[in-house]
């Protein structure tokens, strides 16, 4: 417990997290700070390139370790099981309709790049190692949950859905060649190809300012999350609670899975953070197209305004403490 508190305090006093809080507060104060959307978009691309590339260079150095196959397996397992659990909780405890269940499950089964980036920054701060291919695992975990959720809606039978078949083509494209999947895998492969020599040429742009740029990005994320918090009423108590508990359940499940797989502390933390994180860029776009009847106010608000802040502020140190505690 004291372990967790000290980790949490340490995490909460990094510039990154504090700028997130500043963004959040400034929105509540109705301050007129405005980060142009062009900047948010390029920062998101920057992070995907930076972590993808760095992961690739790591792989080029260490080679592909035996753990890779276990990691791929774990990614797929987490990508399939977490939306399933979410769906069942929402349906049988929350009594939500199928479509909204599926929409929300898709978000909690998918992953958040910025949460992952913040976790990497957390690990760097503690000088804990992790495998370069973990970035690839994140890319692998983006889409399965979305398909699982749509499947669940169909299994639990909703006649209206079938009318939307033309949308499935869009959806498949959207998911397979989704910008984050392409950028993460693309940069990963480039990193593998160019290795350390390539790294020296781009380090002053992709590595050195990384934490600083994250500061600016989290300021922006804080503002976006803060704008959403007004919609909290629409979400209601059960879903608000779900948005706090589901990440913890997913994280603990993953930690146990990683324990069985004997992954390192670093990799375990990243897996647990990926499982705990919920998507707010890729999944909303896909879900809005695939499940238009679902209420966006639910899934965006939960993902962006509750789960994301929880994860980066308290979740990461909490999951870390649990990992240390369990061994």
């Amino acid at each position: 417990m004291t372990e967790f508190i000290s980790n949490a305090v340490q995490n909460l006093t990094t510039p990154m997290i504090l700028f997130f809080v500043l963004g959040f507060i400034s929105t509540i104060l109705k301050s007129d700070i405005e980060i142009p959307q062009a900047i948010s978009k390029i920062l998101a691309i920057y992070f995907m390139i930076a972590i993808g590339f760095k992961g690739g260079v790591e792989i080029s150095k260490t080679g592909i370790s035996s753990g890779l196959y276990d990691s791929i397996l774990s990614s797929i397992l987490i990508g399939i099981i977490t939306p399933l659990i979410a769906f069942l909780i929402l349906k049988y405890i929350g009594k939500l309709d199928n479509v909204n269940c599926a929409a929300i499950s898709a978000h909690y089964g998918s992953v958040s790049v910025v949460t992952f980036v913040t976790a990497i920054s957390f690990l760097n701060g503690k000088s804990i190692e992790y495998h370069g291919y973990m970035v690839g695992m994140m890319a692998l975990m983006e889409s399965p949950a979305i398909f699982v959720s749509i499947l669940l809606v169909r299994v639990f039978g909703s006649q209206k859905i079938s009318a939307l078949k033309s949308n499935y083509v869009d959806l498949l494209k959207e998911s397979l060649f989704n910008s984050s999947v392409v950028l993460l895998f693309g940069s990963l492969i480039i990193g593998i190809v160019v290795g350390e020599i390539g790294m020296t040429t781009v380090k002053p742009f992709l590595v050195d300012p990384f934490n600083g740029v994250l500061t600016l990005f989290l300021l922006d994320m804080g503002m976006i999350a803060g704008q959403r918090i007004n919609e909290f009423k629409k979400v209601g108590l059960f879903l608000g609670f779900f948005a706090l508990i589901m990440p913890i359940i997913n994280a603990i499940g993953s930690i146990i899975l990683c324990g069985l797989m004997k992954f390192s502390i670093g990799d375990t933390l990243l897996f647990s953070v990926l499982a705990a994180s919920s998507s707010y860029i890729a999944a909303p776009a896909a879900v809005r197209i695939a499940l238009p009847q679902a209420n966006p106010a639910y899934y965006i608000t939960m993902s962006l305004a509750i789960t994301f802040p929880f994860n980066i502020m308290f979740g990461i140190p909490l999951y870390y403490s649990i990992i240390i505690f369990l061994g």
Partner: protein
Amino acid sequence: MKKLEIIIESVERRKVCRLLEELNVNGYTIINDVSGKGRQVTRNDSELSDIMKNSLIIVVESEEVINKIIDVLKKEVLNYYSGKLFVSDINMIV
């Protein structure tokens, strides 16, 4: 001639354009990133995913074609997504 103004969620913009092209319209003009407020939520462009943004698409065509477009959009897009269709009289000079 009639002018049809289509206000639609940005996620559906590509689909609407595809439908317009399938209907062989002479042309259309798109204003991306408009914000607005309707029965549902306020839409503005500060979101990271594009699902909270609107696009405004303008089509000037004969009444007949416009009616066809309206039918298709009503069936394929507007039953699930929020959006508005406005029609007015207009002259196409060039």
